[in-house]
């Protein structure tokens, strides 16, 4: 069969691979090359070595600020979203009245797109909450920071909750029973039985929330647009702004994008390693 099928590659593989080349491979390779070039369009690129990278880090437009601001945001949001999602999941698997409805409600915000979410929360936070204290989301970068945190918590906790619930449900009943017979308290059962068994779900959720935090763009754009004076820009928005908001900075923008890409790929590799080593242990 394999040899029969092998001849059919133009039908089976070619469409996807062509589109993959147009949509990803070629732009990726060109982007990598252009990060070492001075350019404003694709046709006038001249090689300048590492100049763009130097410019990116010296940029007064706030790349280094965006870098630590994003890292802080991704870190804090990862902790909060997972704590909330896991707590809700642990309570919901007890199975009291209304759990299905609650699950449906908590998951719902996930389907709403980032731009719509950003505007929705801008109205609520600015008019509903902050107005009575005479401030807005763009008064300082920290209002934007915690505002964005509220949006992401609202949006993502339900997604993580779903993953944790299915992780909890896959823990075999006899393990929990054995713990109960041995006289483990609820806290001990959680700490020494459930959490270790949940490690795969925890790894996935941590990875998802961390990379989502780093890649966040739409919500950032709609909620604060990076104001005041680019101080609430996350990395993705800073890169976008470098490309399209300032003339002559395309090279530096592409260099920033490569640095950004390296960060996210590194996180992914660490996660892959963690998952693999755990698989070996089990």
């Amino acid at each position, binding site marked *: 069969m394999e040899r029969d099928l092998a001849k059919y590659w133009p039908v089976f593989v070619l469409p996807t691979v062509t589109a993959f080349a147009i949509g990803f491979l070629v732009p990726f390779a060109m982007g990598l090359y252009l990060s070492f070039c001075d350019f404003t369009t694709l046709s006038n690129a001249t090689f300048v070595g590492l100049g763009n990278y130097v410019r990116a880090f010296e940029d007064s437009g706030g790349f280094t600020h965006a870098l630590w601001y994003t890292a802080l945001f991704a870190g804090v949001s990862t902790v909060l979203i997972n704590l909330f999602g896991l707590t809700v999941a642990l309570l919901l698997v007890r199975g009291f009245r*209304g759990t299905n409805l609650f699950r449906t409600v908590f998951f719902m915000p996930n*389907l709403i797109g980032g731009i*719509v979410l950003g505007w929705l929360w801008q109205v609520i936070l600015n008019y509903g909450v902050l107005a009575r204290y005479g401030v807005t989301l763009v008064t300082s970068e920290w209002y934007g920071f915690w505002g964005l945190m509220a949006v992401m918590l609202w949006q993502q906790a339900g997604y993580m909750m779903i*993953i944790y619930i299915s992780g909890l449900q896959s823990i075999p009943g006899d393990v929990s029973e054995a713990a109960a017979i041995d006289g483990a308290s609820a806290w001990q059962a959680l700490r020494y039985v459930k959490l270790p068994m949940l490690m795969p779900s925890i790894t*996935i959720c941590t990875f998802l929330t961390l990379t989502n935090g780093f890649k966040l763009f739409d919500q950032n754009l709609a909620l604060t647009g990076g104001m005041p004076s680019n101080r609430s820009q996350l990395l993705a928005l800073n890169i976008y702004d470098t490309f399209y908001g300032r003339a002559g900075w*395309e090279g530096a923008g592409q260099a920033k994008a490569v640095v950004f890409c390296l960060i996210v790929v590194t996180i992914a590799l660490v996660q892959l390693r963690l998952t693999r080593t755990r698989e070996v242990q089990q």
Partner: protein
Amino acid sequence: MAATQKRRHAADAALTAVFSMISLAYVFPLAMVLMNSFKRKAYISRAPFALPSGSMFVGLDNYRNGIRLTDFWASMLWSLVITVLSVALILLCTSMCAWYISRVRNRVTHGIYLLCVFSMVVPFQMVMFTLSKVANVLGLNTPWTIPVIYLGFGAGLAVFLFTGYMKACPIAIEESATIDGCSPLRTFFSIVLPILQPTLISTGILQAMWIWNDYLLPYLVLDLKRFKTIPIAVQYLRGGYGSVDMGAMMGMLVLAIAPILLFYFLCQRYIVSGVMAGAVKG
């Protein structure tokens, strides 16, 4: 025994009460937007929590304004065209590609697989500039042609999910079909595709959620004078100097969210299983 039973009932009732409160708080932002969409513009910031009664009530004025300002129905149509075409194209092409690379095993197919996995991690900012230029040159800037780009950029996740599922599928049925004289194409469409159905649904939902809500890719690629999607239309309400008609914005947010919620309540089961399937990525 009866006492512990009773305690447990009491605890469950308390949990139901607490979670009902949290659920209300979760739905509250949506209710608030709906309420404010019927309110005169000036009152949205002045009295965000008040019911739209008396002189505050403007009927459907906000909706009329918003639809006029953003050409909303056209945007919705284009969002629909792009999402449906892209998802159909992705499901057809990537399932064929995934079957081929999981049944014909050599260095090339393994390379394709690895590149697909890699592309899932790379942030969009890395390719955004070059991709938008390439798309322009190739004329992929209309709703009818942009699905090619979505196929390219979405191929990673889809191929990954399909190959994961096929690894677990027995090869014997396909082989017996071949022995009975089926061509690879016929084997694929009458044997493999039906077996793939659960993954087709979950992959389709994941891709549809992404494409429907996507902002930056269509914003950079589409010819915006002629075509906008819903997220682009919402973001366009923000005027040149950051001034926004908040009344119109409320109306548009409601119109943007309503179809998503409808879709969610109709296909909730599939959406949750789609999320579960997507969670193993990475």
